[in-house]
């Protein structure tokens, strides 16, 4: 970072809009692309605000070293890494604790979605590379990884969609960007199997009253529903031509052709 960042005085303007012009409950522009790599079994690219992230999936495949293999299900392993140039201050190429932590958090967020029991003794490896980071990389990574899993043909209970909510200048806001993450009052990343109503990721830093928490939780769910829709659109675009086969396997594959919205 050659020049120092100015700390913003306010995160929400007098017009009720955020510094990047968004409304409080508005998502950043999101772009999903599925099947972007030639060697991986599945892959997806996401642009979410200025975040640029690639996720790729290999597996189910034989697992090395073998003693890690689970007898009754596949082992899901996610690896979250940041490119050295993805952030303002150059990141050391050595793996950081934060990367190890987020890798595990993302694994936990994806795990409930996968029928791991179908593939005992194998591994499913999810590799995530942050090309450029702009706040909310863990949620954007989950969104990309979820699409890459579907692209690899891994049987899923549902897509996992993720989004952060938080607080800035006393207001509950959706999908925090970098500045809001750093200078806001609370940040709460969430992930859900949206149609099932299952929360697979929930973390929070900052300060919320219980009322604020409940409001944030609700707003998060709304944001997730929109992202979920975008994910399905991206898959549909890719699989338009093979819709029929997929529909037949709908029990174990993501049902991308039906518009079911059965939430609690």
């Amino acid at each position, binding site marked *: 970072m050659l020049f120092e960042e100015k700390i913003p005085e306010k995160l929400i303007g007098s017009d009720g809009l955020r510094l990047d012009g968004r409304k409080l409950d508005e998502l950043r522009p999101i772009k999903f692309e599925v099947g972007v790599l030639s060697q991986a079994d599945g892959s997806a690219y996401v642009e979410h605000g200025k975040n640029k992230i690639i996720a790729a999936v290999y597996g189910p495949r034989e697992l090395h070293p073998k003693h890690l293999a689970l007898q009754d299900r596949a082992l899901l392993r996610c690896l979250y890494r940041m490119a050295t140039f993805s952030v303002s201050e150059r990141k050391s190429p050595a793996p950081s604790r934060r990367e190890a932590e987020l890798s595990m958090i993302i694994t*936990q967020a994806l795990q409930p979605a996968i029928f791991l029991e179908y593939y005992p003794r194998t591994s499913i490896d999810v590799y995530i590379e942050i090309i450029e980071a702009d706040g909310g990389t863990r949620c954007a990574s989950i969104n990309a990884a979820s699409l890459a899993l579907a692209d690899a043909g891994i049987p899923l209970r549902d897509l996992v969609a993720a989004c952060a909510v938080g607080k800035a200048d006393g207001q509950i806001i959706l999908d925090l960007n970098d500045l809001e993450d750093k200078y806001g009052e609370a940040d*709460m990343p969430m992930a859900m199997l949206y149609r099932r*109503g299952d929360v697979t990721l929930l*973390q*929070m*830093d900052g300060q919320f*009253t219980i009322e604020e*928490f409940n409001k944030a939780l609700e707003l998060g*769910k709304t944001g997730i529903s929109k992202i979920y829709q975008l994910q399905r659109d991206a898959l549909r675009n890719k699989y338009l031509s093979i819709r029929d086969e997929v529909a037949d396997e709908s029990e174990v594959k993501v049902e991308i052709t039906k518009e079911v919205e059965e939430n*609690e």
Partner: protein
Amino acid sequence: MSEVYKIVSEIERNQIIAKIAKGKRLDGRSLDEYRPIKIETGIVSKADGSAKVELGDTKVIVGVKVELGAPFPDTPDEGVITLGAELLPMAFPTFEPGPPNFDAIELARVVDRGIRHSDIIDRKQLCIIPGKKVWILFVDIYVLDSDGNLFDASSMAALAALKNLRLPDVKVTGEDVELIKDSMKPIPLKGKLAAVTIAKVGDYLIVDPDSSEERIMDGRITVAFNEEGKICAIQKGGESSFRYQEIQKAIILANKSSEKIFSELSKVM
């Protein structure tokens, strides 16, 4: 002697759930009841602050060492608090020696986030010369005996050790910092912090799971509150999901249970 702890029979799980369904747990506690808590401070004379917490059979020691050093460039007028955790291999049969694994990192991070966002410590008061010299606090958690719920025990121990911490007065001349002997004083703490862990077992939520309950639980959520009842940190853990409504219930239950922690902490703070 040692048994294979990782494999848990369905039988054990069913026994625990059957009991919970009747409102009780294997050790006789009600669903929202903590095990006995014992907090001691000042147990390591070479540490600048220290505490030991026993939560049932779970035993955690926290020691604080201080150094003078440079602040982070982006917070030049704030001291630094560095929190680490070790799950000692003596504490549980499956804990292994080696660099901190995810569980240890998560433990340190959750305690750190609770302390950080509760604003208990005014980091600015740890600054001596802005941009040059600040107090650096190394807060190290050692889990000696792991019978479940390390988050809550470690949070209490860290807080008690910080309360026990003594710093000397300083005399600043230009950029020289002289420490004044025999002037050791505690640092001012604003209020307290309670981390409360709720486990999900089948369709039930229970407080303060022990290691047998952790083995069979479906999920876990830890919520840290400050004394005003504000949530300062949340961490959902484990490989399973919570239903949307269970999250809301867990927050309420955690809030209620935080009273017990605050009352125990009051005895030493």
